[in-house]
């Protein structure tokens, strides 16, 4: 191990790298959860004339895709994914105002919350983190969220995706209350609805009228990206 460390302890001067090398290095730095390095890399690419959208998609989102795959495959652990997502967020903070200026859309937007009666949020937070890692803008309305809370957030943020989470068998049926109300108001089809939590399964997801049940945070991110992309293409 010691010899391999030496190889990497030498400071890499990001500005000296070609675009291609820099993006490769940013994949590594995201993977290793190095926030400052990601911020620096983001700025360098912008200074070389890359658009914010291009930096987002080709450096950050592509890098986080690798993180997601290795998390799913058991190579990266939860604390490491959190570090990677945190590094990604550092880059996103730089890109966000630029993206807003150009009117470029993020990969997707999501409102997420734990349903009424339930205060468990670690799993929901992980999903939010993975979605941010995938380039989503995530609006987390927290725990114990009522129909009114979800509706207010949807009204305000106009997200692509609504995500609902529950840990308890006694609170998970509330997901149906929210979705039924969406149907009543005629807005159900305006949103992709994803649900998750330990006591759920695919059948329950269908029963409450969600688009998909997602078994874990990695899958939630993959499903959200795929469904938003598909929806945008079909409406384009």
């Amino acid at each position, binding site marked *: 191990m010691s010899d391999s460390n030496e190889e990497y302890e030498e400071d890499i001067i990001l500005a000296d790298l070609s675009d291609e090398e820099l993006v490769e290095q940013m994949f590594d730095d995201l993977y290793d959860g190095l926030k400052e390095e990601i911020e620096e890399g983001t700025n360098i690419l912008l200074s070389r004339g890359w658009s914010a959208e291009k930096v987002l998609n080709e450096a950050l989102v592509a890098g986080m895709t690798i993180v997601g795959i290795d998390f799913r495959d058991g190579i990266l652990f*939860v604390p490491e994914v959190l*570090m990677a997502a945190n590094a990604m967020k550092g880059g996103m903070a730089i890109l966000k105002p630029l993206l807003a200026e150009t009117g470029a859309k993020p990969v997707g937007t999501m409102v997420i919350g734990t349903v009424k009666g339930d205060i468990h949020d670690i799993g929901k937070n992980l999903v939010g983190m993975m979605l941010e890692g995938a380039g989503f803008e995530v609006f987390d309305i927290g725990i114990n969220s009522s129909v009114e809370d979800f509706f207010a957030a949807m009204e305000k943020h106009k997200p692509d995706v609504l995500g609902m989470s529950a840990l308890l068998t006694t609170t998970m049926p509330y997901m149906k209350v929210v979705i039924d109300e969406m149907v009543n108001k005629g807005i159900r089809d305006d949103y992709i609805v994803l649900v998750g939590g330990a006591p759920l399964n695919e059948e329950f997801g269908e029963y409450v009228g969600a688009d998909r049940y997602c078994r874990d945070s990695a899958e939630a991110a993959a499903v959200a990206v795929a469904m938003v992309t598909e929806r945008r293409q079909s409406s384009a």
Partner: protein
Amino acid sequence: MSERKRRSRAGGRRKKIAAREQGTRKYRPYIERNIPYFEILNEEGLALIEKNADILLEEIGVEFRDFPKALDLFKNAGADIDGERVHFPPGFCRQIIQSNAPSEYTQHARNPANNVIIGGRRTVLVPAYGSPFVRDLDKGRRYATIEDFRNFVKLAYMSPNLHHSGGTICEPVDVPVNKRHFDMIYSHIKYSDKPFMGSVTHPERAEDTVSMAKLVFGETFLEENTVLTSLINANSPLTFDDTMLGAATVYAEHNQATMISPFILAGAMSPVTIAGTVTQILAEALAGMAYIQLVKPGAPVIFGTFASAVSMQSGAPTFGTPEPGHVMTIVGALARRLGVPFRSGGGLCASKVPDAQAAYESANTLQASALAGVNFMLHTAGWLEGGLSMGYEKFIMDADQAGMLAVMLQGVDLSENAQAMDAFREIGPGGHFLGAAHTQANFESAFYRSELADNNSFEQWEEEGSFDCAMRANLKWKEMLKEYEAPKLDPAIDEALLEFIAKRKSEFEDRDY
């Protein structure tokens, strides 16, 4: 040039995958215990057993069959001899053992990094021993071959949770009885560099084992150090035979270790009670270990115990039940009072296949053995069917349990870092610790991580083929054998061993006895 302090780069995905494959745990050649012993009898109870064992040794005595050398040695030391029966004065055996036998010893491996210390607060985990059959999911149950033997040597070598290569891991029945010891010992030397056990089925085969060990370790080194630990069973009740005594004598004369093990199927070979069984075990072990100390004062001996309860319904041995667990716990305490290393336990079960019965019976005995303070845990991995079958998948399952025992016995870290007060200060109420700096710094080695257990969501498990534990273990042992690389062996030693084996094999006819 940036003045900021950077986190040093870890090398991204490529390095991480390599590091994860290598694992985070450092290989330790044995376990050092840092938790108390589990004991179930008080001083009064243990003293009662010791008194009864002394009565047994004096009044009933122990037979040393067809082995006049033992009778002579005991007679000269002051025991009372009646035919082949030896009657021992109270305290006689204990006194001989306590004034001569070491409380612990080092068994050297050909790779010194794998030397094990046997005794004290240490535990050495060893594969199962002696099965005529092997079993795997693909080919079912069949007689073991030398190929199977080599495979298990390789698997034990590769398992970071096993500290020893074992002995007759399975019986290679495709090789003639009187010559298979050459191939077994050679396999241990060639395919592993962990310590191993010697042949005990004939004094001559013990001599061959010693000769081969001399070629590896050097003659002088062997006479002055222990490089072999070998299994000597008593023929319970209260009998030793010439085969076992003959082999034990050869090893002791060369200063090599023996574990004197009453092999008890309680109810058939000992009384049906725990108290009666432990009394007999103590008496037999005392007699056997005293004999070794008379042959060669100071030669390492282990107090061994193998105890199973016989089903009074059918006569079959049973495993993983509470009573033999109690026997083991009590004998552990008796061995510590005597001051010699203790062998017992393992992943014992009666199940034919690596199913739920196998898993819970084995878990019962593995954990009880660890808590009881076993120093040399023979049969840790692979055992099925009361020892009749060595299971490939079972081996992998047990080796995973073995890894957990090591962590359990390590006890609890109370360092400043382990107290984690900073983590509380950072997170406070209502947050989560997954992103805490303390977690970032410690997560990798924080919890035992099984390579075998599936903890994924139902859906992921289903997508990956709905494999149960045995099916995953099946993939694992095949992958291990595919990746196996033999440890380096000096070609001159290898050549000398092969030459010795060829010469010895040519000196006598193949025989199946």
